[in-house]
C-alpha cells in the first residue's frame, strides 16, 4: 500500500526520471569511453552510471531496482570488472611485455595503448558502478534494522582495487 502511495505522490518526478535515466546513462558512457581523449575515466563514469540506479531506487523504490539489477548480477559484474582490469595486464604479460604494458597488445603500439587503456578503464568503470549500487542496496535495505541481512555489507572493500 505504502509503495503505491509513494508512487502516486511522486508521479511527476517519476516521469521526469524516466527521461533522465537514458541521458545520464549516455553521459556515463561518454565519460567512460572518452576518458583517454579528455577528462573522464572509469571512476567517474562508474559513479555516474551507478547514480542512475540509485536515482531509480530512490524514486521507484529499492525493491524494483533490485529486480532491474539483482545483487547477484552486481556481485558478478563487480568481479568481472576486476578480472577485466587484471586480465588485461596478464594478456600483455603473455604477449611479451611487462604487466600492464599496453603497447604490445596490438601490432601498433599506439592503438595498443589505446585499447589497453580502454579495457582497463572499462573494468574499473564496471567495478565502481557495481560497488556503488551494491553500497546503496546495503544501506537502503536496512531502514528498519530488523531481520536478517540478505546481502553482506563487507563487499564495499572491493572498490579499493579500482
Amino acid at each position, binding site marked *: 500500500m505504502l509503495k503505491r502511495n509513494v508512487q502516486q505522490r511522486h508521479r511527476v518526478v517519476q516521469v521526469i526520471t524516466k527521461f533522465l535515466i537514458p541521458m545520464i546513462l549516455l553521459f556515463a558512457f561518454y565519460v567512460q569511453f572518452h576518458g583517454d581523449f579528455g*577528462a573522464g575515466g572509469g571512476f567517474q563514469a562508474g559513479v555516474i552510471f551507478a547514480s542512475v540506479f540509485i536515482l531509480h531506487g530512490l524514486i521507484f523504490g529499492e525493491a524494483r531496482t533490485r529486480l532491474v539489477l539483482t545483487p547477484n548480477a552486481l556481485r558478478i559484474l563487480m568481479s568481472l570488472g576486476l578480472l577485466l582490469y587484471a586480465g588485461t595486464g596478464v594478456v600483455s604479460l603473455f604477449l611479451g611485455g611487462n604487466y600492464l604494458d599496453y603497447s604490445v597488445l596490438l601490432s601498433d603500439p599506439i592503438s595498443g595503448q589505446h585499447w589497453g587503456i580502454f579495457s582497463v578503464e572499462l573494468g574499473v568503470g564496471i567495478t565502481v558502478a557495481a560497488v556503488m549500487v551494491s553500497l546503496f542496496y546495503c544501506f537502503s535495505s536496512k531502514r528498519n534494522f530488523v531481520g536478517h541481512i540478505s546481502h553482506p555489507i563487507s563487499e*564495499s572493500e572491493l572498490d579499493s582495487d579500482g
Partner: protein
Amino acid sequence: MVEWLAFYNDWAVIVIMMAGFYIMIARYNLVKKIIGLSIFQTGIFYFYVGLGKVDNGTAPIFLEPKVIDESAANVASGIAEQTILYSNPLPHVLILTAIVVGVATMALGLALIVRIYEKYGSIEEDDIQAIDSQFICQLDDKK
C-alpha cells in the same frame, strides 16, 4: 604575519585535519567519528591538491604543438611560445586513488556502524563500552 599568511594553504590543511581529529576525540557517536575521519582525510587530500598547484599553471592537457602555436598566436600574452605552464597532475591522480580509498573506508565504517547498531542498540561509544563491560561482569558472576 604576512609570512604566516603566505602559507594559508598549509594552515587550512592543519585546521581541517585538526577539526576532524577533534571530532573523533570529542564525540562519542560513531557516525560522527566516521565524519571526523572523513574530514581528517579531506585535509590530507587538500594538502595533496595544493602540492600540484603551480602559479599561473593551466590544466595539464596535452595539446598538439600546432595548436599550441595557434593559441599562442591568438592569446599572445601570458604563455610563452613553445611551452605551457601547467599544474602538476600527479598529485591529483594520487589523491583520486586516496579518495577512492577514503570512500571505501567510510563505506565499511558505516556498514560496521549499522551492524553495531543492530547488535548493541546504540551507536554511542560509551554505551557500547558499558554494555560490553556489563557483559564481562555477567560472565564473572556466572562463574
